[in-house]
């Protein structure tokens, strides 16, 4: 659940500006997780406000892409208030990911509430559960919550390279979260095995990085989403549940949808993922600021990094 998808798939960035940004990010990760949880909340809020103000002023490519994605999803032009809230939400996610190792299980359970929880508990107790999520709220926390409430999770990480990130994986694995690399040719087999081992498989399903996704429509616009969640669900007979994480004042809600019907064939896969995308788009539209999609999402924008 480490998907900082803006840090892209492995091949090294060519531009010097990206290299510097990478260095800074790496530095933040390296030290951030040590101090993040100890910072007083007021200070964190102030830092987040300051950075979001700067980001909006600079209006770089990420912010512009975010605005574009939000506009097409909500179907209306994005006013500054929403954009600012979205950037703050992204930063809040960043902060919480760093702070997670310092939170005890009680804190995690306190912060998270799940809407329609019986759907996933029932599936877990029965045929198994594959949960598909978009890049909304703090999906990392959702995984931690599932592990803390008796449902061990297996997930695919979008980025997993340097020693600095290894600390994240090590902590999450100690919580019972199994992390599979997206570059692992055995990934699908491992996910299927996870269902047989009575684990919940959680996958980010709104952005296809592998190039082997299916075409669906997101609020009338064509996009590609990964077919993985549907494949694993069909192959193992597990229930496919879409879920969206959205922040609340001092915590987070995981809104879980109803299980998607399994359908056969390649078309069936597409229809299943279409149902997932519909749930995502509808739920996100109700609280769009928590959807941190700062990468090209719809066709028609530069897909350079997404090509791999």
């Amino acid at each position, binding site marked *: 659940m480490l998907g900082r998808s803006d840090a892209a798939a492995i091949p090294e960035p060519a531009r010097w500006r990206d290299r510097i940004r990478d260095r800074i990010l790496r530095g933040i990760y390296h030290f951030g997780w040590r101090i993040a949880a100890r910072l007083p909340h007021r200070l964190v809020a102030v830092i987040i406000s300051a950075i979001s103000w700067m980001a909006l002023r600079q209006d770089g490519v990420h912010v512009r892409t975010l605005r574009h994605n939000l506009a097409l999803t909500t179907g209306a032009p994005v006013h500054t208030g929403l954009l600012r809230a979205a950037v703050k939400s992204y930063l809040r996610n960043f902060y919480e990911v760093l702070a997670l190792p310092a939170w005890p299980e009680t804190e995690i359970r306190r912060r998270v509430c799940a809407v329609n929880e019986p759907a996933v508990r029932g599936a877990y107790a029965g045929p198994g559960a594959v949960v598909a999520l978009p890049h909304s709220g703090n999906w990392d926390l959702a995984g931690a919550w599932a592990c803390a409430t008796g449902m061990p999770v297996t997930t695919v990480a979008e980025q997993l390279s340097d020693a600095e990130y290894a600390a994240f994986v090590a902590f999450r694995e100690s919580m019972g979260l199994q992390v599979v690399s997206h570059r692992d040719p055995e990934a699908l*087999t491992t996910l*299927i095995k996870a269902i047989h081992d009575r684990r919940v498989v959680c996958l980010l399903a709104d952005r296809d990085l592998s190039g082997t996704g299916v075409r669906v429509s997101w609020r009338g616009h064509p996009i590609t989403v990964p077919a993985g969640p549907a494949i694993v669900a069909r192959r193992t007979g597990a229930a496919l549940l879409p879920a969206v994480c959205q922040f609340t004042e001092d915590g987070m809600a995981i809104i879980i949808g109803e299980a998607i019907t399994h359908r056969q064939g390649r078309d069936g896969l597409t229809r299943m993922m279409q149902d997932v995308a519909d749930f995502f788009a509808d739920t996100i539209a109700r609280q769009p600021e928590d959807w941190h999609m700062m990468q090209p999402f719809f066709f028609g924008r530069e897909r350079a990094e997404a090509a*791999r």
Partner: protein
Amino acid sequence: MSTLEILALLIIVMVILVWRITWLASRVHRATMRAERTWSALDAALVGRARRAAELVTMPGIDPATALLVLDAAAAALEPDLCKGDRERAESDLSHVLDAVDPMLPTSPTELASERARASICRRLHNDAVATALFLRRRFTVRILRLAGRTAEPRPFEMEDGSIAL
């Protein structure tokens, strides 16, 4: 720089580009060939596994229900002209069946175990080769210049091996 110098420079650049592209094309070709060869090896290994499983029914002391279960699963896997998805399912089913019957067998089938291990390794090698081939084929230059030619895009073979000690 005189026109002659510019021309010479251009030619050098062209030569380098052509060389790089040819090299890339040969890598793509090698990778695609490797994906095909590993598929042949995997196919042979799967057939070997299914045949060896079918031979289990001749094991002395085996009960008819187990024999039927195994024979049926093996026959389904050996069926000719299966499409990829069906073959994946049939081979996975065979793995599950073999796992399930393993404690019921009177003696431990070592030959079958090594066939299963061989199939698993061949599957790993095939999927690895496919991943490399796909990675190369999806490169921008390769797509734009159609360096992969008319060869079909290889796909991984996703099946479950079952519990084998590897």
